[in-house]
């Protein structure tokens, strides 16, 4: 379940539907830039413009991606406290991300082509 907050109900539902098929890919992409723990990913998703996606959505998904071997956890030294466990992409995660990226690009291009194609049919009332 993808939960996006702070938007009108219809927009939120639409955003949720769109995000559902891309959230795992986006998480992999964010982790490819820098390892992070669960809450850090929540913040990065918000910063990236997806709104406030709940921790209850991100963390289970992260757990699934670890089960699938796409990410692995590692300890990161923290200057302010005990070592933190962060998640980083594995080699197979990078391969999967590249494949998903290509698929997404093709899909987005197709959608864009449909949306931008000239429409000569008359509008019905």
């Amino acid at each position, binding site marked *: 379940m993808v939960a996006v907050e702070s938007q009108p109900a219809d927009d939120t539902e639409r955003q949720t539907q769109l995000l559902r098929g891309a959230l795992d890919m986006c998480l992999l992409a964010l982790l490819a830039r820098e390892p992070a723990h669960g809450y850090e990913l929540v913040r990065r998703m918000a910063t990236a413009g997806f709104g406030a996606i709940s921790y209850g959505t991100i963390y*289970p998904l992260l*757990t699934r991606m670890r089960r699938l071997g796409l990410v692995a956890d590692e300890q990161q030294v923290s200057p302010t406290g005990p070592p*933190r466990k962060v998640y980083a992409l594995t080699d197979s995660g990078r391969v999967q991300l590249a494949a998903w990226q290509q698929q997404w690009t093709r899909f987005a291009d197709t959608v864009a082509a449909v949306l931008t194609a000239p429409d000569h049919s008359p509008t019905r009332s």
Partner: protein
Amino acid sequence: MDSIDDVLAEADRAWRAYGVGTADRTALATDLRLDLQAAAADGVDAARLLGGDVAGFARRLAVEAGVRRVRRDYGRVLRTALAGAVLGGVLAYAVLITMYPVFVRLIDIPRSVQVPIQVAVAVYYGVPALVVVAGAVLAVRLRLRDLPRIRRTGWMMSLLIPIAGILVTPLTMAFAWSTDYSTAPPVVLTEVAMVLAALAGATLLARRWSLRDRRKASGPSSPTAPEIAPA
């Protein structure tokens, strides 16, 4: 930290209710604690982070982690064991009534042989008790074949129920002695309840132990050694 402990306690209850085994619950809780601690270090409260639905979150997490749910079915095991024990008891009583005179006629012990009273009592009551235990174990094994680890449960029952019977017998006898061996219904009911409670406890314990450490090898935690990376 209290908030993290509270959240983990609630999640653990949800995992138990969902049928997540002990090893998986421990692994899930360990991982979640580390992540919540990292968030807490950033000043984010665990309870606020998860919102109000910790149980729903815990179930989703268990599903995504791919943990195998364990069907404990304590209620079914207990009811089936009781039915089997009752049938076994009836059978034992019938055997005792019909076969005892035959045995007496067949086995003519010479008067020179003195059989200790303890042995006689053990045989006289022990054999029917074994039939009762066998009835309970067989009923569980045969009727509940669909449950995971039911064979192991049966083995544990065949070990624990006799032990429970041996332990509860002197207690029940002591209670009977304390009431001057009264046959008043409340006293007799109490004695029956004591025995049934012991046998039920042994059955539940057998089921619980048979499901322990069901999945040690492939818990959610990464089996690889953690790497230390600079902050």
